[in-house]
């Protein structure tokens, strides 16, 4: 399916900043054959992209858009469930369609290991292999993936350039063979809880690697290479990375390196900074997010796409997602509770099963995990649909307030959420308790 290519003007750069960067990093840049002495190699002006991103509605920073990918037309904001090994645990593809999943994730490293990318390619690509007709996104895998486990990162091959060349050569083959609609660049991720020069090193490496990714990418017509912004919790590093990636005029951008245990106050600030600096007309993907509350906040700040194992993983531990937060089905109180998990949810599980019945299944029968995974993913898809429609209809602040009131009925909305909403210019005073001394 060929998309009409369209142009995106390269973003303008602050020229003083550019000369500063060149001065600092010229010696390093000259060591690598893929960059010129002038700095980054941007994609040509008539950059071909395999997606179209059309904003349909806004509320301040939040936006609802239509994202047209080779395999599916999606509505953002959207949540993407994670199907690491070519399947979402315990759910069949028709159920995923019924639930309303638009894009699902696969993991390049895991799939390259089993059943191997050559096999997937031989059988027609991951879409055909899984029989998933909608969109796919492949990530390299953060902590458990490519970099951590590649043999090249140790010993003789600890030279970063050598390591990348070896790793990326394999990586690009793998991601092109697997054939997802969106492919994530190979980046250097470090935990946000780490401090020191490692973060800076990782950020610059990510920038150098994006050029190699672009050069090695064989299918820009039907696969979108997204760059990933790194830089830990340091605003200066994040800024450098954003500008560097934006220079490359990629089809979309991800904010990586978060959702790793950092405090929420730092988390939202990094998201806010990045969404403000990333281009308006390209999708923004916050990786590894997450909790419904985090998704609402990030959407208010201008992000569009999210992924996380949380909904399906927590289901396997017997926890259901509900408007009030979570419901632990293993709890003995559930044994006599004949209500559905969520009376406002229209999913197959909530329409047919009581908390008591699910309680009798969880941790004893696989069906319990299946039913809870179904409900939790439905909840996340409904959240995505609600975010999209409330922004389009101009009812976003009402939606946010309603969401927060249900989750914090006593008005004890966390400080970081309040601060983030202030920056997003959304008035949530009606959700907060009247008698707090602020």
């Amino acid at each position: 399916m060929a998309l009409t290519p369209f142009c995106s003007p390269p973003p303008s750069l602050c020229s003083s900043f550019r000369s500063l960067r060149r001065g600092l990093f010229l010696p390093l840049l000259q060591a690598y054959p893929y960059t010129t002495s002038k700095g980054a190699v941007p994609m040509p002006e008539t950059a071909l992209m395999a997606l179209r991103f059309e904003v349909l509605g806004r509320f301040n920073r939040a936006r609802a858009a239509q994202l047209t990918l080779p395999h599916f037309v999606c509505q953002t904001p959207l949540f993407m469930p994670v199907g690491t090994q070519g399947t979402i645990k315990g759910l069949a593809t028709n159920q995923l369609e019924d639930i309303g999943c638009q894009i699902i994730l696969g993991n390049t490293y895991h799939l390259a290991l089993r059943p191997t990318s050559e096999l997937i390619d031989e059988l027609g690509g991951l879409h055909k292999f899984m029989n998933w007709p909608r969109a796919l996104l492949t990530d390299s895998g953060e902590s458990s993936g490519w970099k951590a486990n590649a043999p090249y990162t140790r010993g003789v091959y600890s030279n970063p350039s050598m390591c990348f060349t070896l790793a990326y050569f394999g990586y690009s083959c793998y991601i092109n063979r697997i054939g997802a609609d969106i492919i994530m660049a190979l980046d250097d991720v470090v935990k946000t809880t780490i401090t020191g020069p490692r973060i800076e090193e990782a950020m610059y490496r990510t920038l150098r690697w994006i050029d190699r990714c672009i050069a090695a990418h064989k299918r820009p017509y039907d696969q979108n290479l997204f760059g990933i912004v790194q830089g830990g919790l340091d605003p200066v590093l994040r800024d450098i990375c954003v500008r560097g990636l934006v220079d490359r005029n990629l089809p979309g951008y991800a904010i990586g390196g978060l959702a790793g245990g950092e405090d929420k106050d730092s988390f939202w600030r990094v998201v806010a900074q990045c969404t403000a600096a990333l281009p308006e007309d390209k999708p923004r993907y916050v990786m590894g997010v997450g909790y419904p509350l985090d998704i609402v906040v990030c959407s208010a700040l201008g992000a569009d796409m999210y992924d996380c194992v949380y909904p399906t993983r927590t289901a396997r531990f017997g926890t259901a997602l509900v408007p009030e937060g979570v419901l632990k089905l293993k709890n003995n109180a559930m044994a006599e509770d004949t209500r559905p998990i969520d009376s406002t949810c229209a999913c197959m599980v909530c329409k047919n099963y009581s908390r008591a019945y699910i309680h009798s299944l969880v941790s004893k029968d696989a069906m319990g995990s299946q039913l809870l995974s179904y409900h939790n993913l439905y909840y996340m898809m409904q959240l995505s649909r609600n975010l999209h429609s409330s922004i389009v209809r101009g009812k976003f602040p009402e939606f946010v307030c309603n969401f927060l009131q249900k989750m914090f009925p006593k008005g004890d909305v966390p400080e970081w959420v309040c601060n983030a909403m202030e920056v997003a210019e959304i008035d949530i005073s009606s959700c907060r308790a009247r008698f707090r001394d602020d």
Partner: protein
Amino acid sequence: MKFAVKAWSNGTARAGVLHLGNVAAAIDTPSLLISTRKGLPLSIPPDLLPSLPFPDSRLLHVSPIHFFQGLSIKTISKIGGLHQLLGLHGYGFAAFPRDSIQCLPEATSTNKTGASFDNPCGRLLIKPAEYMEMISSMKPELWVTLADEVPAWVSDKRNKTSVDRTIKWLDECIALSPASGAVFGAIVGGSSLEERRRCALEVAMRNVSGYWIGGFGLAESMDVRPALLNAVTEPLPEEKPRLICGLELPEEILQGVAAGVDLFESTYIYHLTHEGFALTFPLDRTQINASNLAPSDVGSDPRKINLRATVFRKDATPIVEGCTCYTCRNHTRAYINHLLNVHEMLAQILLEIHNTHHFLGFFRLIREAITADRFEEFCKDFVGSRYDHLVEDGSERVCL
């Protein structure tokens, strides 16, 4: 519940029709009961159940034991019974305690007060009164009285006691009958022809709607089974249905059909699925699909394929070409092979769907054979076909 016999073959094998209140269409017998755990299949999600053949797949076995330590009688009653509990309104439920995978009768602990069962939560002693309370709250379409099942190796004295107890409990259960639901009288008797006959005669005298034949699949040999089965079915009135559990393999099912049994509960699908096998024997006797024979494959035979085998890594064909089940319409052998190798839950879901679909097809073949009065021939063909691949190789036939 209504039942009528429509056709006979080979003397005792019969094809019949079963009407159950909640099931829209009549169910033709011999038929298979779908095994469940707490009312839902082990892996097939409830929204994929309707994709199985209709109405063959509408009869579900539910074990009351599954609920005893997970869901109280009070809660089930409050919810309104199995149909409301499970969200399965067009289905018929047959309730009996024995689940040949998880809840096996434990004859050594059973005593005069109740029957003992081993299950994942431990050992439970179920008394007739509490059993009937659970049945009343579940409201199944048909239910079986509490039985004392014993394995083949017990002493004659223990066997005789089991028959006496089973009859006593049958009377107690009938006395506590709920308003709705057809009662099936339990018949036991171990490996003794006399006891089997005695029990059958006693139960036949009671006012029950059908018969449940227990005590099989508990270490008796296949050779002695036909005689024991006939000892049970021969004294029973012809117009009432017979239900059996404990027969697993297709050959064992055929033994049951030959003796005049109508409804079967089997663990075959469970064992196949658990081990990564998929049924592939032809369901159309005039066609033998050559690609289903995989003689070089470890663990495969003309009946089934082992999808864990590396020979299927790149096999982009469905499990059975032309099979209309959800799995074969949507997925390939290569994908299921991958799922099995990476230990993903979806493998079990897809295999259980296909194996259930295919095994139901086997029952359809049985019914067709009886209706055409060639059941004996069908049995010979089917059992003989198991060795087809050996004969082609020119090797000796293997005796069972």
